[in-house]
């Protein structure tokens, strides 16, 4: 187990370097890193040259990358367009997005798994077909459309929620945005649970459990669910990283000042340090979530042996 963790950690390193380098290159090659530093105006050539020297932009890209990463590991993520350190932006943005992600994950677990179990146990029934159709529709409607529609209905027409989230972004305010963020994954968790339950329901060990004379409830909870939820739990685990990175659209619709909002601002203003900094953290979150999921396997499924 210990050796496995170390091996996985070592394997994460090239992925981490590759992904951050890729983003670093994209931002540097495609954009003008100092464009945002003089406010909304164009920098005059003298200032530009001075800024370039100050940020080491006259050096080759790979050297810039190394310098940048070196700084990152000492906790220095650079400066944002408004002169604030990027770490300060992170300190205000990440808690908001983490709350949003938690709400989304809770929706996935509670609604997704419940619907999946119900439909999986009653495969082919009207309930099953109905839920299945709804999941397809949810998957098909792009998140930004779902978000705009919910905002229109709940926020504008019925007045159940405020159309935009305050800067506090409390859990209560994040319920609807969380549902929007979760929607596609939610539909997917439902389908995955349904398939898994339906497949395991026909398995030999469930037949054995019935032949042992166990009550139906016990067969389902102790034997069927335990096995069927393994892929679902792991999907939800890996989804954490995807949700945090995919929150841009939801945060824009509901005007939530989280990670997506800051990234969007950073990209519009071509602020290299903000974008690369946030992406670096998101990639790390994604990799760590994946590692944890792999380790979770061993806990959930004793057949998995890490050699």
């Amino acid at each position, binding site marked *: 187990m210990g050796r496995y963790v170390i091996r996985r950690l070592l394997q994460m390193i090239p992925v981490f370097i590759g992904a951050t380098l890729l983003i670093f290159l994209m931002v540097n090659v495609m954009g003008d890193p100092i464009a945002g530093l003089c406010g909304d105006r164009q920098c005059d050539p003298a200032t530009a040259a001075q800024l370039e020297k100050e940020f080491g932009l006259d050096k080759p890209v790979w050297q810039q990358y190394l310098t940048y990463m070196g700084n990152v590991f000492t906790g220095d993520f650079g400066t944002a367009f408004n002169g604030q350190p990027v770490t300060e932006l992170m300190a205000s943005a990440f808690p908001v997005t983490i709350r949003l992600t938690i709400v989304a994950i809770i929706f996935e677990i509670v609604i997704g798994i419940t619907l999946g179990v119900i439909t999986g146990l009653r495969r082919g029934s009207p309930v099953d077909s109905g839920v299945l159709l709804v999941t397809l529709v949810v998957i098909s409607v792009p998140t930004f459309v779902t978000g705009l529609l919910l905002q229109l209905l709940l926020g504008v027409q019925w007045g159940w929620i405020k159309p935009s989230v305050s800067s506090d972004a409390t859990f209560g305010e994040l319920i609807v945005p969380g549902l929007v963020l979760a929607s596609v994954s939610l539909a997917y968790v439902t389908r995955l649970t349904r398939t898994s339950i339906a497949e395991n329901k*026909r*398995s*030999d*060990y469930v*037949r*054995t*459990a*019935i*032949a*042992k*004379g*166990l*009550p139906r409830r*016990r067969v389902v909870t*102790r*034997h069927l669910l*335990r*096995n069927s939820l*393994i892929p679902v739990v792991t999907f939800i685990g890996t989804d954490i990283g995807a949700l945090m990175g995919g929150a841009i659209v939801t945060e824009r619709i509901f005007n939530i000042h989280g990670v997506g909002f800051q990234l969007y601002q950073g990209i519009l203003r071509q602020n290299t340090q903000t974008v690369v900094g946030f992406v670096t953290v998101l990639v790390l979150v994604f990799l760590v979530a994946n590692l944890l999921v792999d380790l979770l396997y061993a806990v*959930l*499924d*004793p*057949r998995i042996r890490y050699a």
Partner: protein
Amino acid sequence: MLLEVRDLHVEFRTRDGVAKAVNGVTYGVDAGETLAVLGESGSGKSVTAQAVMGILDIPPGRITGGEILFQDRDLLTLKEDERRKIRGAEMAMIFQDALSSLNPVLTVGDQLGEMFVVHRGMSRKDARARAVELMDRVRIPAAKERVRQYPHQFSGGMRQRIMIAMAMALEPKLIIADEPTTALDVTVQAQVMELLAELQRELHMGLILITHDLGVVADVADRIAVMYAGRIVESAPVHDIYKAPAHPYTRGLLDSIPRLDQKGQELYAIKGLPPNLMHIPPGCAFHPRCPMAQDVCRTDEPPLYEVDEERGSACHFWRECLHG
């Protein structure tokens, strides 16, 4: 009789039509007796057993007729909850593939102990102690330690012993073993079969042994029921059948066993394939493959003729078969 199946009919509704898996099976087993049910895959032997246990998948399966009398009660008229209490406690089943039949994410101790927790209301701790006793009884070494292990940590033979232990746990009156040794190495097969027979004698249980292996049957069975296309085609005490089969299908099965004294000769094989259960041939279902088939076999379905008091054959020409 401990168990009597009477004129049982089971069919499966699939997208492509109705498959008639069991078409009027009648058999019985007494306490302490071993009945071997013999047949190719698709003959309905496992489906009949699943109907008896009440673990048939419904739908697509459906019991369309017949009775299953267990200790003189018709199981088919019982409520599901009453049947559930009989399952596992009064009758138990051993499956072919122990690896897939045991829950991969629970320890064997949990799975064995569950019988006592559910049916006897024991605490988990007491149930665990009983699980160790059971494992000792089926001669699994170091039971105390291995009770905490998962099924995949055991060898094939040991896993099948655990299945047997699970079936024996509450000392049921009837055990149904569905091809219990098919998935095992030949060397282990004999040991497992011996264990099963020994426990059956000790507890004086009825045993229904479902198999396609005539070799296994000869040593342990008292009676044999041969099934073909969802019907019993021959039913007889074991020594009678080996001496002289009264049905051409049974004869075909016996002739296709390799024998040491016929070295060098070509091995006999029944020609053709088992019938499609959606289109069972009219008349005798075996007639397209039968070397003795006459016109009457294509039109008239043979009843189970009484050969003698203990013996029946569903062949119009059982006399010719018996003496030829």
